[in-house]
């Protein structure tokens, strides 16, 4: 009766086939493909990061020098944003509308689902107002952060600053995520792991409008934030302040070390900047200003600037000469004053003279002859130079000393290969490299290396790698002392006596007698006047005091300071006096005043020199 009855099976076939297709597809997305489960979690789970407060930094007397201040970042998740009154929002947050629009655009292009920071480091005051109004702006959140705060604007270079972590670091270290803060320089960078603490993460369940619906699995996967550890630094805040005041108006640096411990008490570099400039919303602008300043205020001259050491280096040559047995109390070299060859001596003194007098008088002729004797002690100039160079390395010169100063540079002590390349192998000798005898030529040292060298003399033969952090303070206030490498030089301790004697003479009778002498304190020092092809000579001075129980070793360097005795020596002596006597004697007040007010930077600009 019905010829098409069979077609029912075709229709049933179609029904079954489509059911099969749908079930297979469901099997694929529900059972095989796990990506949907991950997507579901990322839909519903909001990772909330709790940033711990960064550790505080104290000076050597437990005086607070770096602390925290609360600040708030505004984040936005573009997908959840609704149309809002931009003008009102801008007024509350204190931003320009154009900036807000462009930040939102950036956030959109980064991700529609992930929250991106659009306003950073909102003040507590604006935060309070915004928090109240936040319900009007779906998709916007506030993330509490802590910012660095400084009671005084000191030690900016060595304290360093904190900034947003860069992409490279994020790729290398899983701990960091976009928007996190990290120490970018100085102590903040070197002790990042101690200071940062541990971020806490809590997982919250949210609905499609990002409203928090509760914790995920009862908070089982949450981790608590651990606040950062405090640092007890070796810096002496008052002395640092005093040093920076003395350096004001000059380009230069001061490094003061406690010789016995290698603890750096002053690490000043001038010109400086306010560490607060790297905090808050103006950070980028300030950074560019500092970067473009011709005086390079961000450069930490104390540990990165390499200068020829000038006459201060004669101390190193003296130690080497003694070690080689070529110098001694009774070994004298002659000096012909200005007629000396190949290096003339500008000082007027006895001749022939012993080491003690040579240091006191900073006799070029003497130190050239001592240097020549050292080099020529060996069969070839190369071997002699190599031996001389090794002595320097032993004194912590020519390479990074390696305390906790990340930015420290090595300076430069040339290798034989340098002279070989320059003059040809076998075509150079002590005459070719004679400038090294008086600390000129290719030789470059950092002020830190000079100060360390003085520490060695003060300690009679050893140093502890100079460092800026003494101990790490745990939450229970217990302190863990850090230990730094102690390096004992090859030189016999008694050899240093004559050098210390010479240095004391420098201050009492010699080149620094007017500038550095302090009643009642046995200061041992050495001036340096560093020839500078670009302008006025640099003024350098190294010293330690008191002679018998050294408590401070110091190096002061003032660029274009003309004579070692003109600026560097007075500044060093003032610091020593301040440190050991707590105050400046009335007799020396005028000197202090003239140092405080000396302004070489403006003078340089006025004279049009570089």
């Amino acid at each position: 009766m019905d010829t098409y009855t069979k077609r029912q099976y075709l229709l049933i076939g179609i029904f079954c086939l489509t059911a099969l297709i749908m079930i297979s597809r469901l099997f694929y997305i529900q059972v095989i493909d796990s990506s949907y489960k991950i997507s579901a979690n990322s839909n519903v789970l909001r990772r909330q990061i709790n940033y711990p407060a960064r550790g505080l930094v104290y000076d050597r007397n437990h005086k607070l020098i770096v602390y925290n201040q609360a600040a708030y970042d505004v984040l936005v998740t573009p997908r959840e944003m609704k149309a809002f009154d931009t003008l009102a929002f801008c007024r509350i947050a204190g931003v320009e509308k154009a900036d807000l629009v462009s930040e939102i655009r950036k956030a959109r292009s980064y991700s529609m689902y992930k929250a991106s920071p659009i306003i950073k480091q909102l003040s507590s005051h604006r935060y309070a107002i915004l928090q109240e109004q936040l319900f009007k702006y779906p998709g916007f959140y506030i993330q509490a952060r802590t910012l660095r705060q400084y009671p005084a604007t000191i030690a900016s270079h060595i304290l360093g600053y904190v900034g947003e972590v860069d992409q490279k670091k994020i790729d290398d270290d899983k701990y960091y995520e976009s928007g996190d803060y990290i120490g970018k320089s100085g102590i903040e960078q070197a002790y990042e792991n101690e200071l940062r603490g541990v971020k806490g993460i809590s997982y919250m369940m949210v609905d499609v409008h990002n409203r928090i619906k509760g914790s995920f699995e009862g908070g089982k996967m949450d981790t608590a934030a651990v606040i950062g550890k405090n640092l007890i630094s070796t810096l002496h805040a008052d002395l640092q302040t005093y040093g920076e005041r003395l350096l004001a108006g000059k380009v230069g640096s001061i490094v003061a070390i406690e010789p016995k411990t290698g603890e750096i008490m002053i690490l000043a570099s001038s010109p400086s900047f306010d560490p607060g400039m790297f905090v808050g919303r103006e950070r980028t602008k300030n950074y560019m200003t500092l970067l473009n300043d011709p005086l390079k205020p961000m450069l930490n001259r104390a540990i990165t600037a390499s200068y020829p050491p000038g006459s201060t280096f004669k101390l190193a040559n003296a130690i080497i000469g003694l070690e080689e047995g070529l110098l001694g109390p009774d070994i004298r070299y002659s000096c012909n004053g200005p007629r000396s060859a190949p290096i003339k001596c500008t000082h007027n003194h006895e001749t022939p003279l012993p080491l003690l007098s040579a240091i006191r008088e900073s006799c070029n002729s003497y130190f050239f002859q001592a240097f020549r004797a050292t080099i020529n002690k060996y069969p070839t100039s190369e071997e002699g130079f190599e031996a001389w160079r090794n002595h320097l390395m032993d004194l912590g010169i020519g390479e990074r000393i390696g305390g906790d100063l990340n930015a420290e540079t090595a300076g430069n002590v040339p290798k034989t290969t340098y002279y070989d390349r320059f003059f040809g192998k076998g075509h150079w000798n002590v005459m070719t490299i004679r400038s090294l005898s008086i600390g000129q030529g290719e030789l470059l040292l950092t002020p830190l290396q000079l100060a360390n060298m003085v520490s060695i003399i003060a300690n009679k033969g050893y140093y502890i790698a100079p460092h800026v952090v003494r101990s790490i303070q745990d939450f229970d206030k217990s302190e863990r002392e850090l230990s730094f490498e102690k390096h004992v030089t090859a030189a016999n301790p008694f050899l240093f006596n004559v050098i210390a004697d010479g240095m004391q003479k420098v201050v009492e009778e010699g080149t620094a007698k007017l500038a550095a002498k302090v009643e009642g304190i046995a200061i041992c020092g050495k001036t340096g006047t560093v020839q500078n092809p670009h302008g006025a000579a640099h003024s350098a001075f190294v010293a330690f005091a008191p002679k018998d129980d050294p408590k401070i070793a110091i190096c002061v360097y003032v660029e274009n300071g003309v004579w070692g005795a003109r600026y560097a020596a007075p500044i060093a002596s003032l610091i020593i006096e301040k440190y050991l006597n707590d105050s400046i004697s009335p007799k020396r007040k005028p000197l202090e005043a003239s140092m405080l007010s000396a302004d070489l930077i403006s003078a340089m600009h006025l004279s049009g020199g570089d």
Partner: protein
Amino acid sequence: MKSNNNILLSLDWIAILIYLTLVMMGWVNIYAAVYSEEHQSIFDLGQQYGKQMIWIIAGIVLAICVLIVDSKFYVAFAYHIYTLVIFLLVAVLFLGHEVNGARAWFEIGGVALQPAELGKFATSLAVAKYMSQFGFKMARTKSYLVLGTFMLLPALLILLQNDTGSALVFAVFFLVFYREGMPDIIIIGGFTAIALFILALVWTQLSILILLMLVSVILFAFLRQSIKEGIIGFAIVSVIYGILFGLKNIIGFDATPFHLLVITSILTVLIFVAYGLAKHIRQAWFVLLFFIFSIAITLSVNYFYRNVLISHQRDRVDNLLGIKNDLLGAGYNVHQSKIAIGSGGIIGKGFLKGTQTKYNFVPEQSTDFIFCTVGEEWGFLGTTVVILLFLTLLIRLIYLAERQRSSFSRIYGYGVACILFFHIVINISMTIGLAPVIGIPLPFFSYGGSSLWSFTVLLFIFIRLDANRTKNLR
């Protein structure tokens, strides 16, 4: 009294049981989809699940009413019902209530009624009535014209209401016509056209032309039962293309491979026509027709796609075919829906434990995307059970239809099965990214009185007809 007893006994309880199971499952899943801590009672009338309970009770009352009416009524008044529904469809255009840009609702005393839903069973009745007339033959032009009008009239009116999904449903009547004797060629042609439509969107014209030429030659060889002619065909195409390619390189005229292929196909067609004429081969004309018809579809797709479809429809298709991947725009619903279903795993997250469901990541989850809740909370097991239940119901309906004595009941039964089939396939497929997002409900599951009642009436009229299966209704 006796006839009443008879009716209860002769009802198909299997279909009714499946219906009740599905409705209950739908209710539970709606509860899960809109569940909130504040309103925990499933009987809370202020919530969608509370209202759905009312719709279900009303639906069951409606089903009983449908069963009480004598089956002869549906045959006798088929056209009247159809006319009335058409009238309502026109009226709603002017008097209707606008929701989401679609003027498709009447509001009567707080209850929204959607005439488009009524169109489904009304058209089924009218089609069944017309096709069961004495002396009806599918093969007549007149039959096609009349049936085509029955389908197109409500479809067009619904299109005017901006409800493309519901309008598309009427296309399934072709499956009913097929069962009643429509030639294979129309169904095959239809599927070919759909396939070509999708290919034309995804592939370049060059690839489609190559495909069509291959298929044509193979088709010809198949119809002629001659592998030799197939090979000769390929040889001719290759040789002509080779010569053209050689000429292009020697003379150096400017032509893309597509141009060369077009010229090749024109030359091949000419040779083919000459061969067909010379040998009087009937199949040659058929293959030629197929080839030209296919080319015409391919070429018109672009026009249709750019000018006829509205931009959001285009976006949905683009997203489905992977031409565009806009997870936050047109692709958002489907993406979220796949996440919800996919995250369910094998056994699901458990009743009321679905995070995507609970926190509203999928829009319209109680209506068009109710299947997501099943997928997320009941897992692969749940979705499979639901699909198998639906499949069982469909097969049962076909079985029931085939046992009818009167062709009216059979045709109507097929109409019911095919309409349900279309809804189930399109709705589930769209939630798992197999079909574009066409807003049609999942029968018996989706929230909403109108759709639940219309499916109930659709189904129970057939169950009523089936109770009288031994009678010859006309």
